[in-house]
């Protein structure tokens, strides 16, 4: 405790650990009350995954990561983009249609589809941004509405664009041509499953996020506006412009969320395309405190919990949905823990300053 720097690090690590422990305790309480095998559940979830499990975790985390970065861009600007959920679905659908048409050969087609995804995602989020700056509509409400509109719109357009896959009653778009798919990376020789090639896309987006926010003038303006709008206005930042741009960026990043799934797994957009990624993104961005490394750890944790809970039904006859309680509780406990630790840190700091001043009463007297 003597070294203030060490204290700061300990507190920074302490908060999420505290939150995780609290979430695990609450989940255990639910299991006990429901009369399920608590020990069995935790020993399954906290065991080491098998090789296939590792790959599934990395893949799921890749998608979560992109979603959480999209949310985090908004958060840094004090914007609550609940609409990532709608944005990524509209964008993934658009990308699937473009990729399915195959206007360009090979990877040019992939790039074109991703560009379409970014533009569509940005445009969908841009509606909320424009409503906010021109009409003063809260982005929380407008993005909730836009999510629901996206669901209806995509369902309608999907029916129009759908092709009949032989021997299946799943409605989906034209499949992505073989040459435009992004191959996986094989980690283990003995398992056929592979890691999404687009895991590098997620890493690149994470790096770009870190670089733009921390190393550019724009990022500085963004953080300044997020911390204090009045101070930002006073220093000449055009806040309205910043709001629209950060909504567009957030939406553009959201547009990429579906890409690893589209080019590495599903190869088409259909009614079975993974949903609900936007809300997980919010949880993970909060857990990772909007930091690119923190978000990566959060994404891995969520993916880990998902993967490890899968066999619970077969092994212990416990519904794997129990981890959703854990995940949701983590969101609450992590926010509470950060607040508690922050207040504790301030108290420690005050005490340290006070005792330092007490040691030098002469100096104080001399100054006065």
């Amino acid at each position: 405790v003597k070294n203030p720097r060490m204290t700061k690090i300990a507190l920074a690590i302490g908060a999420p650990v505290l939150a995780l422990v609290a979430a695990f305790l609450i989940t255990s309480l639910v299991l006990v009350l429901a009369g399920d095998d608590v020990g069995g559940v935790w020993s399954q979830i906290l065991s080491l995954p098998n090789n296939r499990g590792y790959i599934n975790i990395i893949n799921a985390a890749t998608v979560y990561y992109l979603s959480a970065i999209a949310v985090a861009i908004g958060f840094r600007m004090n914007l609550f983009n609940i609409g990532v959920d709608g944005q990524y679905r509209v964008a993934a659908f658009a990308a699937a249609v473009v990729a399915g048409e195959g206007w360009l050969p090979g990877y040019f087609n992939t790039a074109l589809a991703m560009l379409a995804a970014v533009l569509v995602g940005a445009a969908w989020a841009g509606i909320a941004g424009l409503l906010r700056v021109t009409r003063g509509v809260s982005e929380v409400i407008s993005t909730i509405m836009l999510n629901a509109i996206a669901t209806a719109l995509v369902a309608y357009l999907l029916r129009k664009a759908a092709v009949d896959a032989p021997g299946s009653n799943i409605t989906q778009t034209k499949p992505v041509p073989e040459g435009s798919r992004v191959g996986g990376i094989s980690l283990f020789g003995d398992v056929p499953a592979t890691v999404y090639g687009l895991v590098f896309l997620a890493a690149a987006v994470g790096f770009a996020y870190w670089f733009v926010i921390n190393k550019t003038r724009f990022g500085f303006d963004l953080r300044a506006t997020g911390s204090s709008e009045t101070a930002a206005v006073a220093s000449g930042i055009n806040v309205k412009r910043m709001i629209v741009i950060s909504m567009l960026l957030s939406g553009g990043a959201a547009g990429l969320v579906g890409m690893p799934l589209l080019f590495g797994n599903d190869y088409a957009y259909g009614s079975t395309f993974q949903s609900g990624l936007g809300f997980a993104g919010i949880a993970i961005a909060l857990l990772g405190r909007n930091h690119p490394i923190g978000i990566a750890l959060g994404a891995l944790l969520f993916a880990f919990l998902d993967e490890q809970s899968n066999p619970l039904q077969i092994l212990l006859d416990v519904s794997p949905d129990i981890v959703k309680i854990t995940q949701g509780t983590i969101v609450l406990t992590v926010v509470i823990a950060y607040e508690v630790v922050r207040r504790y840190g301030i108290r420690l700091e005050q005490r340290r300053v006070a005792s330092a001043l007490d040691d030098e009463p002469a100096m104080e007297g001399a100054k006065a």
Partner: protein
Amino acid sequence: MTVVSGGVTGVPTATRKYSYAKVLLGLAALLVLISALRIITGADDLDSSGTLRATLVAAVPIGLAGLGGLWSERAGVVNIGLEGMMILGTFGAGYFGYFYGPWQGVVGAIALGAAGGLLHAVATVSFGVDHIVSGVAINIIALGAVQYLAALAFTGVAGGGATQSPTIPSLPSITIDAFSDPLGDLEQKNWFVVSDLAALLRALVTNLSLLTIICLLLFVLTWWLLWKTSFGLRLRSCGESPAAAESLGINVIRYKFVAVVISGGFAGLAGGFLALVASSTFRDGQTGGRGYIGLAAMIFGNWRPGGLLAGAGLFGYTDTLRLRGGGETIHGLLLLVAVGIVLYGVWQYRQTRQLASLIGALLGVVVAIWYFSTDSIPEDLTGMTPYLTTLLVLALFSQRLRMPAADGKPYRKGSAG
């Protein structure tokens, strides 16, 4: 609809622009309009008693969720966890309704919803967590908890499964035959206005669930409690200016707590209504985002019970038309929308707002072209009606909407200084 002229002056002393007589007159005009529309477009299902009864059943859960939002936001706590609390309510109704009886199901729904509200209150009021963050977390937790509990409760029960309950015994409902049958005959005549009025009355005397009546009374009760009692005034003052409220000796934290728990209870009841009256089983995913529609209805209604009721009615109506395979019926409504938008454009022109009037006129023409060039609206698109309406209302009338001044701001005890 009661329209509030929300002044910038803060305290909700807003005067009523329209008296009750004018509201009734407005409703009568609406009836004449719909009747005319029915005859012009030939879409008879626009206001048949079946449609209207289904509208009532669809509007009540939306309205109840909106009431939940109203209670919480009037005390200054934004509640987007309504959806999650509603999900908890559907399970409460399913579990207690099936194992103990339908009225116990109602109580169970309220209790589980209130438990969700309690969680929201602890997080936002006690710990000062951001209201939106807590709401998102509650939606995740509630969904997971209900899926987990449903698998635990209904797996292996005859007629049930991991994602749904067996049939729940139904609540009593009322049919007054003496009115219902003659009104039905009158409705068949297809007379201008008369048949429409008969359909409306018939919907109210045929197969009306007791719970529906109770829920409608809850609207009146909420309005009376929040606007006509000192308890309500204090509660609303916590949403307008908590610091001022505290300086007058009001226990702000306690009022917010109570409001958010009641809010959860209403949302739970909304879910319970879905499971007990709108259908007769609990199903996973039964709410289908109605918690958000309730929130939308509340905003549409400018944080007032009367406006909320109108919003719930409108959204319930569009939902019903969709469920009744009403692509053609909604298509009939397009004409009304086109006329409405053109009128808005004219009004804007008289306010010398050229741009707004031009946009209005263009939109009106586009919708009119859409009406005349098609025969039906695809079912998928009708589902977005409530959300699109809310977005439009927000975009067009955001200056006239006034939410509680301190809505969504965390409050810590002693801020009054």
